[in-house]
């Protein structure tokens, strides 16, 4: 099965799930009374309960538990070696480099969403970070308020055109996502410069390093969330949806 076939399959799955998602969204809106939008008096501040589509919850919880075991018993000890070997500044440099490299993805999706302000910001940031940040290793635009822009991706583009997220999915090793985000990630990968690298082994090594480096940076937050939560799975799902919905609105 080549990558194009995989992509077509994902689009088909997305289509089906989005139909479900949209229907669920409409039903949810119809149920949500005026309480959610604030009324007068004592009940004014009581918000409606959040609902996130999770039709695969049983399976998701199983994979989530597997991933948590993987993170705790394998990734975390390896991460201790990794962070001991590469100082924080070097790891930040890796992160900056990969983020800068993802410019085509952010550019095309900003264009698709007609966000010309973001197109300009992303382009200026990419140029400055590539030239003055040694190929993107240093994020020289980080403290330039005029150039800050939340990253766009294909899943957000689909949301922009009215498509729902589809159900929540927990993937082995890769963790939280939604059906729309899976499709978005696959579509974006075609635009990512790393996908052009040959041979395959070098490409997968770099993509793997990018993911692992990001996961390493997020590990302390993951541990804190686990420690402070009552229901780790629900807490993680909520963080994922809140974060992604926040990006969609920016």
């Amino acid at each position, binding site marked *: 099965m080549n990558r194009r076939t995989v992509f077509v399959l994902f689009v088909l799955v997305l289509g089906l799930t989005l139909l479900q998602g949209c229907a669920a969204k409409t039903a949810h809106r119809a149920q949500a009374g005026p309480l959610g939008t604030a009324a007068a008096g004592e009940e004014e501040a*009581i918000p409606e309960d959040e609902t996130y589509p999770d039709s695969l919850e049983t399976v998701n919880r199983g994979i989530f538990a597997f991933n948590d075991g993987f993170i705790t018993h394998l990734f975390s000890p390896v991460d201790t070696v990794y962070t001991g070997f590469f100082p924080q500044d070097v790891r930040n440099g890796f992160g900056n480099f990969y983020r800068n490299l993802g410019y085509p993805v952010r550019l095309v999706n900003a264009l698709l969403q007609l966000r010309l302000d973001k197109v300009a910001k992303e382009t200026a940031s990419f140029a400055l970070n590539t030239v003055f940040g040694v190929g993107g290793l240093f994020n020289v635009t980080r403290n330039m308020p005029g150039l800050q822009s939340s990253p766009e991706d294909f899943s957000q583009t689909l949301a922009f055109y009215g498509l729902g997220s589809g159900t929540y999915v927990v993937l082995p090793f890769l963790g939280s996502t939604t059906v729309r985000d899976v499709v978005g990630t696959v579509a974006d990968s075609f635009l990512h410069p790393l996908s052009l690298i040959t041979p395959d082994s070098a490409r997968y090594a770099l993509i793997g390093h990018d993911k692992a480096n990001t996961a390493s940076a997020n590990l302390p937050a993951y541990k804190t969330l686990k420690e402070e939560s009552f229901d780790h799975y629900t807490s993680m799902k909520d963080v994922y949806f809140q974060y992604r919905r926040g990006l969609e609105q920016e």
Partner: protein
Amino acid sequence: MKRLVLFFVLFPALALAMTSPTDYVRTNVDAVVAILTDPQLQGEEKKSEQMLRIESVVDGIFDSQELSKRALAQHWKLFREDQRQEFQKLFLELIKHAYLKKSIAYNNEVVQYNQELVKSETLAEVHTVLTSPTVNMPIIYYMIRRDDSWKVYDVSVENVSLVKNYRSQFQSILQNSSPDQLIAILREKIHE
């Protein structure tokens, strides 16, 4: 001048009106940072004193009723008055602990106050960015005006609201548990 002083003595609410939500957050954040960077309070043996002092600042920042009401959402109505009181006390304790833990990780970050959105006479948002050499982290303080001061009823980091996150979890727990059981779970968590 005397008249002016008398005016403010008689109308403290008007004097208070001059304290903006941003000023309130800034004053408290500055107080916490001052304790964290106080040379007299460095070192392991001073840790507990440092924490006690931060706790005394944090004690008054949050509005426990609003925090709880929003975290329980529709379930708030199912709680009796005594259960509400108990829940408020424990939930505030939990939020305070989380805040204290995060403050220990303080590493010379600087807080920038970017925007203040006044939503109504009683509600406001203070948009800040926590900047360190490695990350810029947007933090929003959601404020409610009580009789004598502004109070924080939610904090969001990178668009993720703390109270909403607890709401999702409480909602999931309350599907199969009673308010008393949730209160017991909360108590257990605090004593972990």
